[in-house]
């Protein structure tokens, strides 16, 4: 979709596709995984065909999630490296949370909060993938020493909780900062939104590099 005169292209078709496929797979992985984590969430197995089917499907869903996210990762990881001007923004993060948007220094395409979240999600997913293989029955778990499997079980649970918390923050941020959602749905944002939230990126996009 071509951006209108008052809009900027933020994500192309592929990036949006990768994002939403990752999101759906992650939702399925989180539901099926959390079902096996706490008894109060076992009811979630109904979405994946009961207990045994949940055990069978969860690892495959997880691998698919990691695979699709990898495509997204390759497209956006360079833009998520911390920059010099991010320091000032990070120091004022408390102001932002108190609603004092005007106090925030300008940032590029991603602010340091978004960048940190990106890396937390990337690392969590890597941990989930590796530890997932170590505990995957009936295919892999039996070939690893039991103590390693136990470490994997704990790390898998910790990484999963970190991941869910990160996604909650991610979703809330999209609701909190108005005008954000269209970036991922239609691929475009208004110039006003860009100038207000990502001034350096706005300048780059409107005045050339």
């Amino acid at each position, binding site marked *: 979709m071509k951006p209108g005169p*008052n809009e900027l292209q933020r994500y192309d078709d592929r990036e949006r596709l990768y994002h939403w496929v990752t999101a759906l797979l992650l939702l399925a992985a989180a539901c099926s995984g959390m*079902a*096996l*984590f*706490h*008894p*109060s*969430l*076992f009811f979630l197995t109904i979405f994946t065909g009961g*207990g*045994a089917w*949940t*055990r069978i499907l969860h690892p495959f869903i997880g691998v698919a999630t990691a695979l699709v996210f990898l495509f997204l990762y390759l497209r956006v990881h360079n833009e998520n490296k911390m920059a010099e001007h991010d320091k000032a923004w990070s120091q004022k993060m408390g102001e932002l*949370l*108190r*609603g004092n*948007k005007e106090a925030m220094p300008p940032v590029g395409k991603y602010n340091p909060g978004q960048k940190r979240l990106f890396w937390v999600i990337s690392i969590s997913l890597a941990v989930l993938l590796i530890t997932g293989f170590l*505990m995957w*029955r*009936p295919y892999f*778990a*039996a070939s690893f020493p*039991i*103590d390693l*499997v*136990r*470490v994997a*079980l*704990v790390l898998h*649970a*910790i990484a999963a*909780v970190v991941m*869910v*918390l990160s996604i*909650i*923050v991610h979703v*809330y941020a999209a*609701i*909190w*900062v*108005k*005008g954000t959602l269209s970036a991922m749905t239609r691929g475009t944002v*208004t*110039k*006003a*939104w*860009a*100038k*207000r*939230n990502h001034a350096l990126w706005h300048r780059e996009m409107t005045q050339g590099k």
Partner: protein
Amino acid sequence: MAGTNPQNVVARSATTTPSSQVRSSPEVAKLIDESKCIGCKACQVACMNWNDLRDEVGHNVGVYDNPADLTPNSWTVMKFFEVEPTAGNLEWLIRKDGCMHCDDPGCLKACPAPGAIVKYDNGIVDFISENCIGCGYCVAGCPFDVPRISKKDNKAYKCTLCSDRVGVGLEPACVKTCPTGAIGFGTKEDMVIYGEKRALELQERGFKNAGLYNPQGVGGTHVMYVLKHADRPELEGLPKDPSISPLVSLWKGIAKPLAVAGMIGAVVAGFLHYMKVGPIEEKEDA
């Protein structure tokens, strides 16, 4: 028990409310007296006979152990150990391996499937196979390396302590068949007294370190051994001070409620933040 209405379930996997437990019966235990065991494997045969299990014919691995280890079809296995507890003093120790029926069962703690593992008030820990999902968490939870996952149906299997026999007032099949009386069965209380008495006898006869193996790290067990070298159970493949791995305790203990509270807390925090601070509006001034 099996096939009847189980109203004596004192612990049930992945269940947060009490299970039906109005009935009560005394705690039972099996006592395996190693000093009386002749390694005939009649208990193995009785186990497969009563439970209708037939393992594959395996291979001789150079020792008497056959099969070499517990399998989904062999819930008890005689294990033979050639050891020198003191230098130059060879001893042939024989131990009947199988589920220990822990008072604090690690398998049950780890199991995510409601009702796939239960503990009855008589102390027997049973796998309710129709609820088993095949995840293998019980394998990680067990301090004795007992549960085995079947390749045929992806269900976990282990000794039931013949819960179906005990439930109707019979002793386990292995106890019934043992030709030397090396396997005893009765109330836990009686078996502890008997085992300690037997250990004293052995001490008088020269086995200075004879003793009862009823490890307290798992709350005691409902399968106990009289060992000739109770100070060194590792001589015959038993952990010295078994307990549920701290990793498993963390994972299926404090981490569980903490994580759920954290996730709910994050969503609530989001709502409160939106109510108090409000959104960052998009300004039309570009």
